[in-house]
C-alpha cells in the first residue's frame, strides 16, 4: 500500500472513533439560555460602556507609562537587543542579497543592499507562478531565481532565470532565462550558480514511488543558447528519504557539495547522520551516489523532527561547508538541540562549527538568545567560517537575519517578510 493510502486509511480509522462531542457552549450560555438574560446583559453593557471605557483607557495609559519607566530604569534587562552590524562587519559579507518574500498570497523577488537596508530590485512572481528558490554567485551581482507554473493538473513547468545587477551607477538589472530540460513534474527545483558564474547546477526531485525519491543534478552553461541541453546529468534513487539539501559550489567551480541523510543511501537504522558528499562536476554523467564521495559525517538531521531528542544531543537542521572545505557550519533547532543556556529560556537555535577532517565539534559560533522556535539556517560563510550569515527564527514566525563575526552576533536589515517555507535556506541568498 502506498504511503498516501496508508495515511488515508489510518486517519479515517482514527477519525471514525470520534462519534460524540459535547454541545456548543457560548459565553453566558447564550445559545441555550433565556433571551431575557441576554437582553439584560446587553442593556447593562451599554450603560456600563459609557463610563468604563474612558476609565479603562486612562488606566491603560497610566500602566503603560509606568511600565516604560520601569523598563527604562531596569538595572539589567533580561535580553539585550542584537546590535546592528557595523560597517567593519558589513565589509566582510556580500553587499547585495536576494530574498523571496511572501505576504499572504503575494510573492516578491527582492534584492537588498545590506549597507543601506534598501530594496534595489523588487518584482512579483511572473505569470501567476510560484517563486521557489534563489542562489547567488561570488561576484555579488548575479543571482539565480527558480519559479514554477502549474500548466495543468498533472504538469508543473519550471523556469530558471539569471538576474544580474549592473555596476554603479543606476543598479539596473537584466535577466536571462536558462532553458532547463526534463524537469516537468519535479516536486521542487533549486538552481545554484557557480562562484565564477560559468555554470549552473540544477537540482530537482521527483516522487517515483511511495517511499522513493529520485534526485537529479544537471549542469548547464550559465550563458547558453536556448537549444542547449545539460552538460552532464547525475541521478540517484534515494529510498525512504527526503531530498538532498544544502547544495553549494566549491573548488574553483568544479565541485558540488550536498548533504544526504545517511539512511537514504545505506538504509542504516537510526541514528542516521547527515553525510556531506562531494561531486566533481567534470566527471561523466551517471549515478549520483557512485560519482560522489563522502567528505563529512555530521550530526543527524532526523532528530529535528523525530523528537524527543537525546538530552544534550545536537542535530543539524542545516549544514554548510565553508569554501576552504575545512569547516562544516551546523544550524540547530531551538527547543530540541541545545540545553538551557540561561534561566527562563528553554534554548535558542545555535550555530556550531565542526571540523570536516575529524568530524568533531570545534567551537560554538553563536548561541542565539531568543527562544523562538525554529531553525538556524546558515546561508553564507566566508572562506573559514569566521564570519557567517544565518537565518534565525524571530517573533511570530518571522525570520530574522544575523551575521556572526568575531564571536559576536549582529543584526542585518531585512526589509521584506521572507517566505515562510521549510527553513531550507533556499529563500535567501548572499
Amino acid at each position, binding site marked *: 500500500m502506498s*504511503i*498516501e493510502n*496508508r495515511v488515508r486509511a489510518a486517519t479515517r*480509522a482514527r477519525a471514525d472513533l470520534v462519534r460524540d*462531542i459535547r454541545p456548543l457552549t457560548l459565553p453566558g450560555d447564550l445559545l441555550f439560555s433565556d433571551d431575557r438574560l441576554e437582553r439584560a446583559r446587553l442593556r447593562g453593557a451599554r450603560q456600563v460602556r459609557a463610563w468604563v471605557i474612558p476609565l479603562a483607557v486612562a488606566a491603560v495609559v497610566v500602566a503603560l507609562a509606568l511600565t516604560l519607566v520601569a523598563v527604562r530604569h531596569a538595572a539589567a534587562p533580561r535580553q539585550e537587543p542584537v546590535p546592528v552590524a557595523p560597517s567593519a562587519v558589513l565589509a566582510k559579507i556580500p553587499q547585495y542579497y536576494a530574498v523571496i518574500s511572501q505576504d*499572504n498570497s503575494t510573492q516578491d523577488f527582492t534584492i537588498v543592499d545590506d549597507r543601506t537596508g534598501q530594496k534595489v530590485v523588487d518584482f512579483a512572481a511572473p505569470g501567476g507562478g510560484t517563486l521557489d528558490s534563489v542562489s547567488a554567485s561570488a561576484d555579488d551581482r548575479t543571482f539565480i531565481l527558480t519559479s514554477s507554473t502549474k500548466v495543468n493538473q498533472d504538469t508543473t513547468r519550471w523556469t530558471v532565470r539569471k538576474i544580474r545587477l549592473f555596476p554603479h551607477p543606476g543598479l539596473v538589472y537584466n535577466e536571462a532565462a536558462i532553458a532547463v530540460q526534463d524537469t516537468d513534474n519535479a516536486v521542487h527545483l533549486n538552481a545554484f550558480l557557480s562562484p565564477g558564474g560559468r555554470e549552473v547546477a540544477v537540482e530537482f*526531485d521527483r516522487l517515483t514511488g511511495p517511499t522513493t525519491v529520485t534526485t537529479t543534478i544537471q549542469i548547464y552553461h550559465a550563458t547558453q543558447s536556448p537549444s542547449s541541453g545539460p552538460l552532464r546529468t547525475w541521478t540517484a534513487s534515494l529510498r*525512504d528519504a527526503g531530498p538532498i539539501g544544502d547544495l553549494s559550489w566549491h573548488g574553483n567551480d568544479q565541485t558540488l557539495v550536498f548533504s544526504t541523510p545517511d539512511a537514504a543511501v545505506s538504509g542504516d537504522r537510526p541514528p542516521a547522520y547527515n553525510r556531506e558528499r562531494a561531486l566533481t562536476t567534470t566527471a561523466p554523467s551517471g549515478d549520483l551516489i557512485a560519482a560522489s564521495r563522502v567528505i563529512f559525517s555530521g550530526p543527524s538531521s532526523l532528530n529535528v523532527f523525530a523528537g524527543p531528542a537525546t538530552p544534550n544531543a545536537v542535530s543539524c537542521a542545516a549544514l554548510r561547508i565553508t569554501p576552504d572545505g575545512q569547516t562544516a557550519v551546523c544550524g540547530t533547532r531551538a527547543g530540541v538541540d541545545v540545553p538551557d543556556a540561561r534561566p527562563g529560556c528553554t534554548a535558542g537555535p545555535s550555530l556550531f562549527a565542526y571540523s570536516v577532517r575529524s568530524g568533531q565539534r570545534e567551537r560554538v559560533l553563536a548561541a542565539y538568545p531568543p527562544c523562538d*522556535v525554529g531553525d538556524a539556517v546558515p546561508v553564507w560563510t566566508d572562506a573559514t567560517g569566521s564570519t557567517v550569515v544565518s537565518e534565525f527564527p524571530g517573533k511570530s514566525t518571522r525570520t530574522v537575519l544575523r551575521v556572526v563575526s568575531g564571536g559576536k552576533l549582529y543584526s542585518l536589515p531585512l526589509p521584506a517578510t521572507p517566505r515562510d517555507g521549510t527553513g531550507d535556506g533556499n529563500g535567501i541568498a548572499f
Partner: protein
Amino acid sequence: MKSPSGELPALRDARQHVSALYQAHALGLVKLAVLMVGDQPTAEDIVQDAFLGLYRRWSALRDADKALGYLRSSVVNKCRTFHRVRFRRQAVTLDPPPDAASAEAEAMLGEAHREVLVALRQLPPRQREAVVLRYYLEMTEEEAAQAMGISRGTVKSATSRGLAGLARILKEGGVR
C-alpha cells in the same frame, strides 16, 4: 427592530447560524483537530474556540457561505498555536502522551494504523497539516493553501517532505 421574542435580530441571526453550523460541521472539525493534536478533549476545546470566535465576529462576516472555510482555517491555526505553545513549554518533547481516553481509542486501531498516526505526529506541524488536509480531507493544493494561509508551492513542498518524512520514520522504526 426586535423579533417577536424580543431578541435582537443580529444576535438571533448569529445564534441560529452558528448553531446550525455546529450541528453540521463540528464533528468533522473535531475529527480533523484530533488528527492534528492527538487527543479528543483538546480537539473539542479548539473547535469550541473556533465557533466562539465565529460567533463573536458574525456581524463582520461578509459572506456567510465562507463561514466553513473560516472555521477550518481557524481550527488549523489553533492546532498550530497549540503545538507552538506546548513546544515552548515542554522543550524536550514535541507531543506529550495522549490522554487516557485517546490512548484507549487508538488501542482499538490496528498496529499499522497506530504506527502511521504516531509517525504523523512526529512531523513538523506544517507538514502534518499539509498531509492531513491533502489525504484525509482530500483537499486540492489550492484548497489546502487557503486553509493553511500559505502559498500553493509551500503546500506542495510541505506535502512531499511530509510523505518522505513519514516513510522514513516508518521505515526506520522511529515511531515512539
